């Protein structure tokens, strides 16, 4: 489980939040809410360890993530604003390489299956520069299907997605929660997961 206690973070001279505490248990989902510039992305990036908090502690299963370091990275998966896909590579290559970077070897069959489930049938081998914004986002989101991380940290996962894709993401999140995974995310679009209590955290 993920536990955050008395977290404080600032960018430049501006204090974004302080004394932030919460805990996320297996099978739970939490939405971070707040206006633009309230520090949603900074909070998620702090949870990933990119930003060193001014104060407070983040622990994973009782241990400080700064000490766990790479052991923590193996358990979590982050999807940021940027898709982390290369224009010159095909969807298939992109997916297999990003799985490789996160330490797992993904065979072609599984990768194709994941891309097809994301609605990219027939586009697996095209260079991603010819795909639309929404399709590129789908390539990035396909990583959710091939990762065995327990904690998903999703920053605006629904941008550029159409109704069908949003439904698909909701389905994926529901499956992940059913496997006792954890999700923490931000969104400006409504996202509902059937049969799950949605916790929310407001930053102001």
């Amino acid at each position, binding site marked *: 489980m993920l536990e955050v206690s008395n977290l404080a973070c600032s960018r430049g001279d501006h204090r974004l939040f302080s004394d932030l505490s919460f805990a996320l248990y297996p099978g739970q989902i939490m939405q971070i809410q707040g206006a633009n510039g309230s520090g949603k992305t900074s909070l998620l990036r702090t949870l*990933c*360890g*990119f*930003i*060193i908090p001014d104060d407070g502690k983040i622990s994973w299963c009782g241990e400080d993530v700064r000490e766990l370091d*790479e*052991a923590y*990275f*193996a358990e*979590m*998966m*982050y999807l*940021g*604003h*940027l*898709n*982390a*896909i*290369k*224009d*010159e*590579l095909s969807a298939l*290559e992109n997916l297999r*390489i*990003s799985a*490789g*970077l*996160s*330490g*797992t*070897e*993904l065979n072609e069959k599984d990768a194709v299956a994941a891309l097809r489930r994301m609605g990219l049938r027939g586009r697996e081998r095209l260079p991603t520069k010819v795909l639309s914004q929404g399709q590129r986002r789908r390539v990035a989101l396909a990583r959710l299907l*091939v990762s*065995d991380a327990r904690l998903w940290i999703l920053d605006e996962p629904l941008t550029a997605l159409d109704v069908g894709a949003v439904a698909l993401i909701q389905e994926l999140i529901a499956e992940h929660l059913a496997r006792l995974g954890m999700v923490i995310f931000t969104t400006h679009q409504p996202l509902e997961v059937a049969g799950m209590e949605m916790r929310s955290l407001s930053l102001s």
Partner: protein
Amino acid sequence: MKKLSLFSLLMLVVRRDLVLAMRRRADVLTTLIFFVMVVSLFPLGVGPEMGMLRKMAPGVLWVAALLASMLSLGRLFSADYLDGTLEQMLLAPQSLSVLVLGKMASHWMVSGLPLVLMTPVLGLQFDMSIQAIGVLILGLLLGTPILSMVGAIGAALTLGLRGGGVLLSLLVLPLCIPVLIFGTGAVEAVTSGLSVSSHLSLMGALLVLALVFTPWVTAQALRISME
């Protein structure tokens, strides 16, 4: 799912960067053309007197190689930084240092190795002896990887900064002076009939030092720059 070994992770990064470089061939070629052009400008600048050119050749080629590698270093991390891949790399559960080493290796293959392969032709332009060209190539083979590795630290530190390219050269060039000295020193030793082994073994020692320390230092620099 099967876990990747560190070695296959290294190979994955090298292969990925080489594929990307092949699909963006223009970038590779510009570095090489820059190198050839800078070297060819010298005779025009100092006059075509063969004795002087022969004496200057190792220095000119080395300095040009230094400048060419500075030019290509800006691209080492910037593409991955802009499209978000670097974020994913920092979250790699195995070893960021290994990923960085892979990127350094492919950077060298794409921007260092072509310069080394081009050297014999340029050496002939400067009327260098075959022996001197041989030692020059050997020195470049040992030295250009050091440039890629030390340069990677600078590239990581200047990531995403305005005017990063010039700043990068300002940070990295002073650190590369020993490589320049040993590389040109070896050629001068062989032309004056002395042994080159001390120069080249010192260069080898620098290469080993760089291999041991720079990937980790670069990884730390990346973490600092991504904050």
